[in-house]
């Protein structure tokens, strides 16, 4: 396939890596192409909060030089050598501003790299910049960003989803080869569904959380977001694996996930949870997911109905557990060691320590973050703990048991990722509960610690992407990826060079 200089941006990350290794293209060419794309495009999208052009070019030149030096042995370079990527701005990057899209961290420059960042760097990736999100990953639309609004590349009047909305928007609009997001209650899968990309939340503990600004520690996971299943598998190979810096990290060898992609689904049993199909799902979403189920049957999978009876309790359980953990984690933002400090009254009187804490946090956190800190503080408060927090943890056990029972008879679960396609900017900002319901199908997976992924499975008549969700057994990433890859091949979503066959509109001039 002849590809012009500007078309390099459409290639998959795996294809870009292959061409760099083969000497067909330089990392500098790729990096320049993406920086030009960002300059053209991102004014309309708002995916980037920080662009590191000079640093990226210097890094690309470094990779190109290393490649020249590795003459004849390009495999000594990492599997992502020369590939330009961008990261959700909740992943800590040494020397590069990391904001969590919050005013309280607006100017924070971390003194270290998170584990996933150093692993990507060791794999040879080039970092283009940092991507927009809901403040501290709290939200489902990226509208809670204190920095700027991010828009859905398919329809700029709509949200990209959230909280990893910048990652999803940048990936689908070809402003980076691939990205990483974080997923606490759906924050990788839901924006991936809204933007039509592949996004995977790993089994809890598979990917290190060291250097990820913590939201809810028992739920948070980092995962890949990309245009193809192969790229997601490739990125997962790079970032997964034991890390002594994370006490919840699983100590187990990392499989070569790409080897699973050709396995197909013949002989697999896929469970269809009744509760995820029972009303409240948009008709076009339901139709696309039904069609995907039929495709899997054609491919040789068996599909069976299953029940996850505690599904309706996932939302209240999640909104007790996650805010409780958040209220504790976010206690560190107190104006003492880094970030914003407010230590004066409005008429410039110095205040004491206690008031400094309150003023700093009152000024630094946005409305949704305050809401969750308040909710979490309430749930953990003495006298209320048993009725709220402990109760939620018990229900969490029941939700996990539902999955354990289902996985006794099925290999995978399949459901819509979201009840609706992307909603309009502003549509749900007035009512927090309405916004919370956007994640109704993705929360249980985090509560149970399971792996889950979004796989694009069609479009609405008006051209908005629709996603289906695959949920796997603990450490069942290979089966999940095999099923996703089989579907992607069958529907012909990806053409030569890993280029998606359907792309969002270009820049409106």
């Amino acid at each position, binding site marked *: 396939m002849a590809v012009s200089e500007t078309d390099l941006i459409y290639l998959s990350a795996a294809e870009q890596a292959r061409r760099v290794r083969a000497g067909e293209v330089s990392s500098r060419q790729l990096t320049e192409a993406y920086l030009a794309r960002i300059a053209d495009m991102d004014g309309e999208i708002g995916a980037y909060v920080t662009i590191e052009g000079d640093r990226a070019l210097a890094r690309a030149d470094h990779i190109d030089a290393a490649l020249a030096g590795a003459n004849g042995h390009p495999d000594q370079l990492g599997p992502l050598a020369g590939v330009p990527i961008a990261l959700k701005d909740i992943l800590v990057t040494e020397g590069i501003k990391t904001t969590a899209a919050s005013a309280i961290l607006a100017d924070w420059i971390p003194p270290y790299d998170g584990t996933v960042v150093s692993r990507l760097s060791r794999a040879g990736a080039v970092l283009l910049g940092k991507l927009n999100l809901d403040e501290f990953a709290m939200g489902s639309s990226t509208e809670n960003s204190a920095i700027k609004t991010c828009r859905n590349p398919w329809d700029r009047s709509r949200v990209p989803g959230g909280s990893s909305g910048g990652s999803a928007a940048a990936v689908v609009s070809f402003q980076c080869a691939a990205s990483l997001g974080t997923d606490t209650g759906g924050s990788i899968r839901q924006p991936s569904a809204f933007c039509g990309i592949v996004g995977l939340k790993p089994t*809890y503990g598979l990917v290190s959380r060291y250097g990820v600004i913590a939201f809810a520690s028992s739920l948070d996971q980092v995962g890949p977001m990309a245009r193809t299943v192969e790229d997601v598998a490739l990125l997962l190979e790079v970032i997964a694996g034991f890390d002594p810096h994370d006490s919840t990290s699983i100590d187990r060898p990392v499989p070569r996930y790409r080897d699973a992609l050709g396995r197909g689904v013949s002989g697999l049993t896929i469970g269809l949870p009744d509760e995820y199909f029972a009303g409240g799902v948009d008709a076009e979403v339901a139709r696309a997911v039904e069609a995907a189920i039929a495709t899997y049957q054609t491919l040789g999978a068996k599909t069976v109905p299953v029940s996850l009876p505690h599904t309706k309790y996932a939302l209240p359980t999640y909104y*007790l557990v996650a805010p409780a953990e958040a209220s504790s984690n976010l*206690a560190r933002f107190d104006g003492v060691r880094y970030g914003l400090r407010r230590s004066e009254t409005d008429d410039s009187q110095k205040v004491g*320590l206690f008031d400094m804490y*309150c003023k700093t946090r009152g000024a630094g956190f946005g409305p949704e973050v305050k809401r969750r800190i308040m909710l979490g*503080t309430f749930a953990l408060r003495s006298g209320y703990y048993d009725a709220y927090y402990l109760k939620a943890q018990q229900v969490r056990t029941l939700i996990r048991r539902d999955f354990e029972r289902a996985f006794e008879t099925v290999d995978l679960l399949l459901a819509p990722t979201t009840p609706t396609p992307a909603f309009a900017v502003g549509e749900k900002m007035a009512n927090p509960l309405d916004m919370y319901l956007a994640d109704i199908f993705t929360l249980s997976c985090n509560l149970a610690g399971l792996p889950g992924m979004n796989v694009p499975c069609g479009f609405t008549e008006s051209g908005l992407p629709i996603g289906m969700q695959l949920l796997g057994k603990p450490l069942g990433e290979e089966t999940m990826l095999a099923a996703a890859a089989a579907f992607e091949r069958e529907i012909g979503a990806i053409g030569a060079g890993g280029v998606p066959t359907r792309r969002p509109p270009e820049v409106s001039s």
Partner: protein
Amino acid sequence: MAESLTQKDVEEIARLARLELSPDEVESLRTELTAILEHMAVLQALDTEGVEPMTHAVPMHLRLRPDNVGPSLSVDQALGDAPDRADEYFQVPNIIKTNVGE
């Protein structure tokens, strides 16, 4: 379980959370949190007698590591983003005087 929060409740939670809120914020949080807690009342109807609480997504035990000296941040790196420092320390506002009666 459904709680109707009062203004005083909200102010008390905000104090525990070290959050300064404007009167408008107190009022909107009062109504929003009340609505959210109403939604959670459904949990109360569920029988969880004898159910083990789940604190972690994967069963695990605390891992110990050898007590070895490893690389760490220098004092200057650690203080690099401090809003205020004095020599090798984080500088904070007066603690004792303003916290009398806290």
